[in-house]
């Protein structure tokens, strides 16, 4: 009786596998075709300098210590602004905390995930790169 059960499940298993032939393959030919991303995908950061007040919240909520570096300064009106701001993608875990906790919505995340590079130093996003990301990806959309 037990053996008969095995035999039946053997046949069912083979038929199940056979059905896969007629299904659409899940393979994606990556560099030519790209996967469709969700709107909430967390990729490379973008940064709007105008909005940032250099409050340092993002630095504090970042779970990966030392990822965000802010150098703050006062302008002529007595307001703080970030003179230098950098996000080190070598350390970042793309959790999105910085985006969520920024009180002024200065940080956004883009859909760019192709971040492989030859040098580690290029993965440290300086303020200019972040600004450019903002104009290229957030405002354009």
């Amino acid at each position, binding site marked *: 009786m037990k053996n008969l059960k095995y035999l039946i499940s*053997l046949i069912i*298993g*083979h038929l*199940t*596998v*056979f059905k*896969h*032939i007629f*299904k*659409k*393959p*899940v*393979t994606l*030919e990556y560099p030519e075709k790209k996967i469709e991303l969700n709107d909430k995908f967390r990729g490379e950061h973008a940064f709007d300098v105008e909005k940032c007040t250099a409050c340092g919240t993002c630095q504090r909520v970042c779970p990966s210590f030392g990822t965000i570096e802010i150098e703050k300064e006062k302008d002529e009106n007595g307001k703080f602004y970030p003179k230098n701001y950098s996000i080190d993608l070598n350390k970042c875990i793309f959790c999105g905390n910085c985006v969520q906790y920024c009180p002024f919505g200065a940080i956004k995340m883009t859909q760019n995930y192709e971040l492989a590079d030859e040098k580690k130093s290029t993965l440290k996003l300086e303020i200019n790169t972040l600004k450019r990301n903002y104009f290229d990806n957030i405002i354009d959309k």
Partner: protein
Amino acid sequence: MDYLYFLYLELLHKWNLPDYIAMVTFPIIPFCFVAAALIVVVIFLVLAERKILAFFTQRKGPNRVGPWGLFQTIADAIKLLCKENITPEGTDKFLFTLAPLLAFIPVLVVWGIIPFCNEFDIISFSINSLLFVVIAAIPILGILLAGYASNNKYSLIGSVRSVAQAISYELPLIFVLLSIVVLASSMNLKQIVLAQSSIYPFCGYFVFPAFLGFVVFFACGIAELNRCPFDLPEAESELVSGYNTEYSGMKFAFFFLAEYAMMFIMCAFIATLFLGGFLSPLGFYVGEKLIPNEFLANLSVYFEQAFWVFVKTFFLIFCMIWVRATLPRLKSHQLTAFAWKVLLPLSLLNLLIVCLIKAVL
């Protein structure tokens, strides 16, 4: 064959060569054809296996080299040929080199046994089906030597498993072959094929009386080929890659070639025994009906017969890949238990059924 031999003699006479050269070299010519066919079939087979396996698992398979990845295997072969031949330290150099040859050459020989059409069975004598089983077992020796000479524990375990497997699975295989011999009253493969012809298309095939035997033979064939689910000798997750772990370059290519060529031949053998070999399942030959010229019609029949052998063989290969895509690997003790407790009794039962059928009819 005689006519071709005569033509060949004439050709050699033109070059003033003695007769005995023709006698020695003539049998080599079909062998060259077979060897060339073998390479082509293996190249196609490796690609087919990867593609079909991909379809079964909802992937696309190789698709980079050439259109639809058709040249993938050729690229792989070139890569293998360019690789360095490494002989690790502490190996038995002579046996290490001998093993791949021992695995490969018997495969070439058994190719000649399969009747691809009415006239083209090169090694043809009264008990050549027995010869097939005997020679098809020799590669196991090559595998054992490879494991023994490699000076590597994984290789040794892999090869020992392979031998244990071969011993358990050879027995039911022979019993099923015996049942076919009972049905056909002959041990010559061509006679076995001709015994399957009947007035109705494909009704005389031996799968019907010996269906049980067909299933047992198929399972044993898979085990002989060391394929999933009986691929214990090459179990990647436990033994790196089994008996050929230490091999590289050309020697590895020999093992690879032997494995896939053997897969094709085993399927051709099953097709010959059970699925009517070169007989057309339509009951007639298309060329015979369509081509008015008698000589050309006869010639086209040969090609059609070869075509049917290939169709049946590839159907069986498809089934083997299907099994591979479905079933997980067995455990070591399950493997032997399956052979001795399930397949052997089934093959004996099959023999009994076949004998009864033969006695009644």
